[in-house]
């Protein structure tokens, strides 16, 4: 970013009385290659480019973005954004010399190696899944990557640059029989370059997805009702992400759209539950070098032994809710103002064994693989699909079932988590909220929820 242009933007914001001005400049090059039914179905590359300018008046946010980064346009944009405002803010700080939060020095840069590097991985996945059975009717595999160059400058003198690279492999395998179709996916993602692909077991992932699709295809529908549920590790953490994680973001709390509003220090979960949001884990899909306001990333303990410790915060949320900055301000791109968002969120490992959990259930469900879900943070109401489940009868697994959905309220479910396993694993996902889609990781060991409504065919 040209420092003189930044200075002009700051001066315009100050002349209009803004307490704080921030510039976020981004250039992201993203590419994707998709193999479907043995042919390349999609090959694409996009360059996203632009600047977002944020003005704060107290905690009121004014945000504008543009792809035209000329000084004339940016100054005009700020004037339009804050038209009619006035005030007498304190003098802005002088910009510090630019520092780097992260660089691409130690990675295999996707932009250099190109799309052709992906081909072998995609064909290997396709071949492995097709070997499984004639019931496999379609295999798709894709690898996406995105390399971003970010600059954040603000009126407090911050000038930080960050370079980020993410790579994600996805395989979706469809099994079919008698007109019925079931798809299953595996989609690990990484914060890094193409080096993450070297040891990726793409054949195993494709076969895992294919085997699950076939099991579900041949499974009966579950009969619904209230029952205990043992939830799978890894992507099972999506239920905590949706039902509890979003209401623990200051973006929900500051609007009182959270059942956890005003409950710091209170017991909100079973004492077996410790929950963490950690942006610092090396190579995890949801990790960051620095947040999108330039705050250093950290490991944030949200719930410890069932007691609420803090919320995930951004600058505005921290000020309104009265919690420290947690380095959680995130946005999809320059087209969004940053708000508090999750990074790598997980329920920490406990002491129970998976076998003990299953043995403790007379009549229930083992949700071995969760699908997606959503939550209304204001009411706590959530819903999740179960991609693959097993009935539990008399303390033993009793066959695969399909068509299950879990619904409930986040604050009611947390106290019902009565057993937490030792086998913590993580899984990549994409999370959508007011600052767009951001990469996140969810995780947990196996956990047991004593009672939850399972939707099925009565």
């Amino acid at each position, binding site marked *: 970013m040209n420092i003189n242009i930044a200075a002009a933007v700051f001066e315009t914001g100050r002349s209009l009385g803004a307490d704080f001005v921030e510039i976020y400049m981004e250039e992201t090059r993203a590419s994707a290659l998709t193999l479907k039914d043995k042919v390349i179905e999609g090959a694409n590359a996009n360059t996203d480019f632009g600047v977002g300018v944020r003005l704060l008046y107290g905690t009121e946010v*004014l945000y504008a973005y*543009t792809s035209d980064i000329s000084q004339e346009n940016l100054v005009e944009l700020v004037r339009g954004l804050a038209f009619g405002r006035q005030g007498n803010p304190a003098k802005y700080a002088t910009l510090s010399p630019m520092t780097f939060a992260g660089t691409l020095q130690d990675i295999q840069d996707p932009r250099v190696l190109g799309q052709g590097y992906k081909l072998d991985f995609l064909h290997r996945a396709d071949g492995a899944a097709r070997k499984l059975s004639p019931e496999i009717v379609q295999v798709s595999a894709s690898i996406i990557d995105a390399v971003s160059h970010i600059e954040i400058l603000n009126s407090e003198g911050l000038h930080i640059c960050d370079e980020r690279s993410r790579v994600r492999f996805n395989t979706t395998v469809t099994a079919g029989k008698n007109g019925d179709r079931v798809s299953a996916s595996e989609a690990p993602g990484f914060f890094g370059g193409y080096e993450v692909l070297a040891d990726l077991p793409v054949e195993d992932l494709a076969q895992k997805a294919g085997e699950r699709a076939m099991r579900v295809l041949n499974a009966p529908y579950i009969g619904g009702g209230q029952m205990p549920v043992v939830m799978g590790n890894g992507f099972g953490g999506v239920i905590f992400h949706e039902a509890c994680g979003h209401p623990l973001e200051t973006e929900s709390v500051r609007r009182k759209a959270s059942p956890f509003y005003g409950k710091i220090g209170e017991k909100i979960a079973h004492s077996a539950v410790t929950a963490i949001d950690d942006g610092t884990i090396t190579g995890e899909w949801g990790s960051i070098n620095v947040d999108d306001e330039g705050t250093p990333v950290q490991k944030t303990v949200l719930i410890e032994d069932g007691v609420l410790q803090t919320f995930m915060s951004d600058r505005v949320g921290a000020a309104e809710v009265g919690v420290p900055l947690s380095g959680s301000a995130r946005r999809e791109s320059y087209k969004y103002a940053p708000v508090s968002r999750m990074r790598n969120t997980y329920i920490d490992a406990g002491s129970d064994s998976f076998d003990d959990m299953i043995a403790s259930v007379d009549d229930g469900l083992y949700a071995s693989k969760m699908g997606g879900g959503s939550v209304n943070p204001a009411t706590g109401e959530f819903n*999740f699909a179960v991609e693959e489940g097993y009935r539990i009868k008399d303390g033993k697994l009793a066959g695969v079932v399909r068509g299950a959905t879990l619904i409930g309220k986040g604050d009611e479910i947390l106290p019902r988590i009565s057993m937490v396993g030792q086998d913590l694993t993580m899984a990549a996902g994409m999370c959508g909220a007011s600052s767009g889609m951001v990469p996140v990781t969810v995780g947990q060991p196996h956990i047991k929820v004593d009672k939850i409504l399972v939707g099925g065919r009565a």
Partner: protein
Amino acid sequence: MNLSEAVELLSQEARRAGAEQFDIIGQNMRSQGLSVYNKKVQRTELSQSVGLGIRLFKNGAPGYASTEKLAPDAIGQTVKDALSHAEFTAKLNIELPGKTSLVELPEPWNDEIEALTMEQMATAALEVEAKILAEGAEIENIPHLGIGTDSAQGIFANSAGIWHQRRANQWGMGVGAVALRDQVRKMGVFHRSGRNLKLLDTDHIAKMAVERALELLSPQPMASGTYPVLFSHRITSSLVGLFLSSFHAEVVQKGQSRLAEKLGQSIAVPQFVLRSEPHRTDLSRAKVMDSEGIPTQALTLIEDGKLQNYLYHLESAQRDGTQSTGHGVRGFGSKVSTSFHNTVVAPGSSSADELRKSMTRGLEIVKLEGASGCSAVSGEISIGVQGFLIENGQRSQVVDGITLSTNFFDLLQQIEAISSTYHDNFSAIKVPDLLVGGVSVSA
């Protein structure tokens, strides 16, 4: 460099690089909007963005690339990227269309929307907030209340001589109000949008948000079982919309649709008629030309209960040896895919109220909770819902915390009646109430 100049430069670069054919999409978008909370404007947003994308063909194979940077070096790189991608993809025997006559439709544009100021929008939003708080003593909070306008200018150009410009704008307001009774919270959501600013009626928007926040309070338990279900016109568009990809020829060709090999066969009750209506200017996705330069046309998908057609774009049509139906869609940064333009299910003869009165005992569903238990591939529906138990034609109690389980393709065969009532949102899909027999409910 403005958008037209950038499209022209991209065309020149593609020709210079030896592309046999190409089509280009350029978009220039502007928006402004704000949200209010607790009697104050909380957030104001203003945006302007551009995008330029190309699909070019080299040795018959397509390659895509796009950029948001309208500069010569970025445009040159975009052509290089697209050419390199054409080396990976399979050859397609398609010919991009040339100029042809198009249906004339009114421009989807209202100058009054462009004249709407931030101050006017703030006044309207604060009015809605005040009216909601004045109307409902049980309203605890209004965490979501936003208003904004969007405008877009688009250019479609191709190597066969088409240069088509279009612009569109609209306004929108959305409210989420939370009501509290007996420790149970419910959020009432109401959204209104369009090009007609007379519909920015703060009294009506506030009244509807309050009504929807209050109506589902005090839920009572109900028994699991099999019930007839009246899916309200408020949610049928969302429900049917989840499964529309089954009608896309490209999805059928990929083995991802249960409608494969069903042309001419009965897939629904006779009264269920489904059409794509691109020339309905009262709906939000009216267009005269698709994203590949093919003139749009109305298309019947289901009539007399039988599957009549699939939706085609150029590539899927070539695979099936037929013509595109003009249903190709593409944003500047994406690959061509298929979509209905406007989707309409034909109305029945009875109103929604009359259908409710015809029910002895059943459920009326007015709210869907997520869609992650629904699969367009299998047709499976396993979804949380909220609504009312209907007894003797009347709403007898509120129900929530229940799930429905069925299959969309079974549901089409189990429709007992279709209402004549549509939602009044400005949207691209219109589906009346559907009364469906024998749906499994878990409670």
